[in-house]
């Protein structure tokens, strides 16, 4: 993997970090509006809306059921 690809991966937010019930960053898919915490989340969503719509629905359902959806702390790319 190139350094540029690693940097891109490091800057992209995970679906767990992206999901939110309300935001100004939104898109509509299948007649439903999806809200995102960050702009890159929306870009990723639009690349594969069918997959991400189901993923976001599941994450929102988990939130509604009180199941934690927070992403575990990422491993640092820089050795300590």
């Amino acid at each position, binding site marked *: 993997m190139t350094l540029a690809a690693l940097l891109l991966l490091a800057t992209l937010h995970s679906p767990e970090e992206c999901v939110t019930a309300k935001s100004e960053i939104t898109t509509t898919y299948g007649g439903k509006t999806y809200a995102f915490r960050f702009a890159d989340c929306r870009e990723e969503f639009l690349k594969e809306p069918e*997959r991400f719509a*189901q*993923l976001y629905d*599941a994450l929102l*359902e*988990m939130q509604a*059921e009180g*199941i934690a*959806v927070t992403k575990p702390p990422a491993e640092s790319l820089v050795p300590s």
Partner: protein
Amino acid sequence: MLRTVTVLLLVVFALAALAADQAICAVCGPREGSGFEPVKARATYQGKEYAFCSLKCKVEFLKDPQAFLVTDEGKPAPAFTLKTLEGRAVSLADYRGKVVLLDFWGTFCPPCMAALPELQALHDKHAQRGFVVVGVTVDDRPALVKKATAKLTYPIVQATPQVWSAYKVNALPSLVLVGRDGKIAKRFGGEADRAAMHAAIEKALAR
């Protein structure tokens, strides 16, 4: 009397509905060989439906579906000996030198049921060229299986968790094409794969 019969029928339908909503989790099934579990979530990916035992599994799958899609083409098909509903043993080794299409299915899976006549037609069409369909049911209700397969002439065997785990069955229907060399030639899922399946069968038979 009529009331008792109605109540009994309602109970039977409720139990049937509960029993039907069971499937192999697309995440836990191939990973742990966990077998049938109550379906808590479903997802569609590339035209194929997947069932999950939890929302967490659904999320795990949708985050990286490719990680759960099986790519074992070219590898030896796992050997098995399974029993038909009548108790006759059927082994994959019985069909050595033939092209075998393994159909993992269940009566609770509508696309699986819809495919049965087509599979019978394929079995009949290519039988003379060394082709056989083997139905591997993951359904544990023999009466329903017997009824659904009454008109079929190809062998129907009862799967075991070991076999569906060995074949990494993560969704239904799952069709596995085994070549004359005993190696997995191709895997197919839902209806979207039909044309590709026919082409792969022709290719395997030509070898």
